[in-house]
């Protein structure tokens, strides 16, 4: 047991899923694009170009701020953060400095019964930089390439207070934050492709210092592109700092990188080298004003909180945690599920349909459940579930019907008529078919009667095949067992 308490604060940068960039009309989605193809004079910082604020990004900023229980200021503005570097095309970055879009928030990373609150210092909007690639060619010349596709992509920074006291708590916060942002539909949470970037500030202190509210110098660790890296870097730093103090030395306030290969932190620059960014309000943009009515409208449009939806699915509908989480993967999916339940209240059946054949269809079509565009009406999907539950269609028929519902947008009844689908459920219709199958499979009949129950399934399959999947499974089972004289 270390004699030090750990103190962690987290900074997260996340790109926002707007269609266009923060201050120009260029497409935001640049993944896989040829370098410098998603650019225009504005995001290249050409002479005389002016920024125009992306209203959707502002709304996303407000959504995040509200979901993190932040206060939204009445007025805000963008400021110029000045520093020269080739990835910064204007020589300054536009960012909300004095008045972030959200401040004084908090998020609970514990449970309702045992809350563990992490305070949010600020949520602010800014623009992403271009991407530099350092190259050394075969001749040994080294140079840098600048790709401006990323320049001007809307970026949101979320900074906590130093409220986390273990690497586990830090990771719990990050997971919670990512869930919230992804669920709001404003970020994709992808760390591997740099859409979500993590930085941790860490220091240690004695219990006495904790009591007195004193903080020791902190180290900032950057380049953390997975939760596991965050955990590993924090575990390493806690140990390193404790050892430094135990040797009677001091921890210097520095910015560090995480060296994944060697599993250690590496100093990048010290506090003495900290830059003076010479912030001042961007004169090319008038101040932003957030009226109470605007904020209320955004608040009203927020989806329910994800964990509340998950717990409702578990407690009210009796679904297991795994399926509840999957159904609440996006506000759109949860809303679709809820709408289906209104038509077919059998939650188990609807959940199984949605998470099974329905999701397979969505995936095959390379669609996603972030929006309901292109999906069959929820009422028809629910009707399909209801008919399945009631034995009016069979499992194989569900598989046949779903693509048609996706393709045509028509109702279940129309699709059934078009595909000639019906259920062969009457005994007088099924009995002769069963008799034919049994006659043709004498070997199998022998085996079943000898107690090889697995072979029973084979016979069921043969009858299904003979009815082109239209046999009602319940009736089929009952009749087949009667004929074979075996118990179910």
């Amino acid at each position, binding site marked *: 047991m270390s004699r030090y308490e750990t103190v962690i604060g987290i900074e997260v940068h996340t790109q926002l899923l707007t269609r266009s960039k923060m201050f120009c009309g260029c497409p935001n989605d640049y993944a896989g694009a040829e370098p410098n193809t998603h650019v225009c004079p504005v995001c290249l910082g050409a002479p005389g170009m002016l920024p125009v604020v992306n209203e959707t990004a502002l709304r996303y900023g407000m959504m995040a701020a509200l979901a993190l229980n932040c206060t939204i200021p009445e007025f805000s503005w963008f400021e110029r953060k000045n520093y020269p570097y080739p990835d910064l*095309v204007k020589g300054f970055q536009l960012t909300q400095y004095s008045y972030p879009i959200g401040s004084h928030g908090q998020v609970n990373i514990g449970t309702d019964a045992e809350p563990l609150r992490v305070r949010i210092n600020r949520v602010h909007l800014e623009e992403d930089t271009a991407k530099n690639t350092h190259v050394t060619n075969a001749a040994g010349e080294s140079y840098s390439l600048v790709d401006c596709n990323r320049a001007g992509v809307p970026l949101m920074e979320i900074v906590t207070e130093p409220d986390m006291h273990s690497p586990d708590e830090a990771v719990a916060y990050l997971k919670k934050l990512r869930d919230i942002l992804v669920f709001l539909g404003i970020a994709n949470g992808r760390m591997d492709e740099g859409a979500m970037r993590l930085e941790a500030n860490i220091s240690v202190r004695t219990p006495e210092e904790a009591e007195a509210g004193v903080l020791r110098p902190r180290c900032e660790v950057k380049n953390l592109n997975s939760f596991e890296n965050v955990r590993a870097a924090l575990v390493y730093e806690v140990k390193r700092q404790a050892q430094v103090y135990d040797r009677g030395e001091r921890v210097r306030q520095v910015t560090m990188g995480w060296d994944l290969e060697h599993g250690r932190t590496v100093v990048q620059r010290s506090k003495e080298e900290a830059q003076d960014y010479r*912030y001042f309000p961007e004169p090319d943009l008038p101040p932003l004003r957030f009226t109470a009515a605007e904020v209320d409208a955004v608040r009203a449009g927020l989806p329910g909180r994800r964990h509340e939806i998950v717990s409702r699915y578990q407690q009210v509908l009796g679904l297991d945690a795994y399926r509840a989480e999957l159904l609440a993967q996006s506000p759109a999916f949860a809303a679709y599920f809820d709408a289906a339940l209104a038509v077919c209240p059998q939650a188990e059946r609807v959940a199984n349909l949605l998470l099974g054949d329905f999701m397979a269809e969505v995936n095959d079509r390379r669609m996603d459940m972030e929006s309901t565009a292109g999906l069959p009406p929820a009422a028809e999907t629910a009707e399909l579930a209801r008919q399945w539950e009631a034995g009016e269609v069979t499992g194989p028929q569900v598989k046949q019907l779903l693509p048609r519902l996706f393709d045509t947008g028509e109702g279940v009844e129309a699709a059934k008529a078009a595909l000639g689908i019906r259920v062969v459920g009457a005994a007088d219709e099924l009995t002769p078919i069963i008799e034919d199958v049994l006659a043709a499979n004498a070997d199998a009949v022998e085996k079943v009667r000898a107690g090889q129950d697995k072979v029973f399934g084979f016979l069921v399959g043969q009858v299904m095949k003979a009815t082109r999947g239209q046999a009602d499974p319940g009736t089929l089972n009952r009749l087949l067992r009667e004929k074979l004289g075996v118990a179910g």
Partner: protein
Amino acid sequence: MSELSALTLEQAAAGLRAREFSSVELTQAVLDRIGSVEPDVRAYLTVTADEALTNARAADQRLRNGGASLLCGIPGGIKDLIATRGIQTTAGSRILEGFKPPYNAFVIEQLRRDGYVLAGKCNLDEFAMGSSTENSAYQVTHNPFALDCVPGGSSGGSAAAVAAEEAFFALGTDTGGSIRQPASLCGVVGLKPTYGRVSRWGVIAMASSLDQVGPLARTVRDAAIVLGCIAGRDELDSTSTTRPVPDYLSACERGVKGLRVGVPKEYFIDGMEPAVEQAVRAAIAELVRQGAVPVEISLPHTDYALPTYYVIVPCEVSANLARFDGIRYGVPQPGETMWEAYANTRGSGFGAEVKRRIMLGTYALSAGYHDAYYVQAQKVRTLIKRDFEEAFEQVDVIACPASPSTAFPIGAKTEDPVQMYLADIFTLAIPLAGLPARAYEAASEWSHSQCRERLQVGGAQ
């Protein structure tokens, strides 16, 4: 045909409509005039003769079809700070030598919509920093009325081109007097519109919170025609106003009877040239003769305008000019390291005044100085604005000199930047307040509040 170039814009427009001459003839007359006087005046950095004649032929077609605007077929000069698609736009700086923007400024699109003819790009102080056009990296422009004197600046090329009949109008930009002071020194009309009246999109920024595009012309009515064309909301300039554009030309018809003309005592100072004071007093007397009412007023924070201006402007300059690194456009210079390449590019690409302002602004925004300079200057700016708001409770317009002197000799002030800054002493305060102002031939300057309809004051000149 060269006498055609001496017409006013309005006369030329009337002649085109009456089929007395074509736009091609009018344009050729201006090109001929440029050919004969340009060796002495040097108002243009680029003369776009081919473009001009192409524009003129298109304009003649539009004129034949009828319904063309007053600017259709009229050659104008454009300050080389304003982006013109495919045509070199240098800002008067080496760092942008050869830069051909792939876009037109909003004001250029407006002029093109009306069918104007681009005669060429006018000389200026580098990045509009200066009051004599001597800071141009390319050439010195001479005052057409006194060739050994400066035309003023920074829109000196625009003022000289209009004065020398090398264009019927020109566009300039004004940050602290860069339209009005050269208009005054060259004896033409120059108007700095209210901040936000004209889009800055495509206008290379010096100080974004002050820069404004405006017309220079030989008559008030001509300037009104041009302003009517370029003014208006631009969705791509968030600081442009949504207020409707009034009919400036018909506003020129109104008289000045009953107009309350404020005469600020702080603008008639010791050390100004007697000729300037005489001319301004005479102009005010003429207004009074026509029925205007003179009112002595005070703008108590006038003395602070110059220091305030020279804090705010360099601060914004230091950020606005950071983008000129030679990487994406402009003239790069190699270096052993990235920082050396930056230093070489900017060190050789920028002139002394530009470097001076970048350094001043960087200093004024730095930690430890930020509050004492930038924040304090913004507070004083508010006080200056309030001076004007209070004054406009008593008066409709304010009349004062635009420059403390008439045109001064070339080279007279280049050694002392502060002397050069003082050339703008009477024009700096008005943009700090966001107000419009107009300079006239009498070397007098009119500024007026939001009452844009009062523009007819100018008509009385």
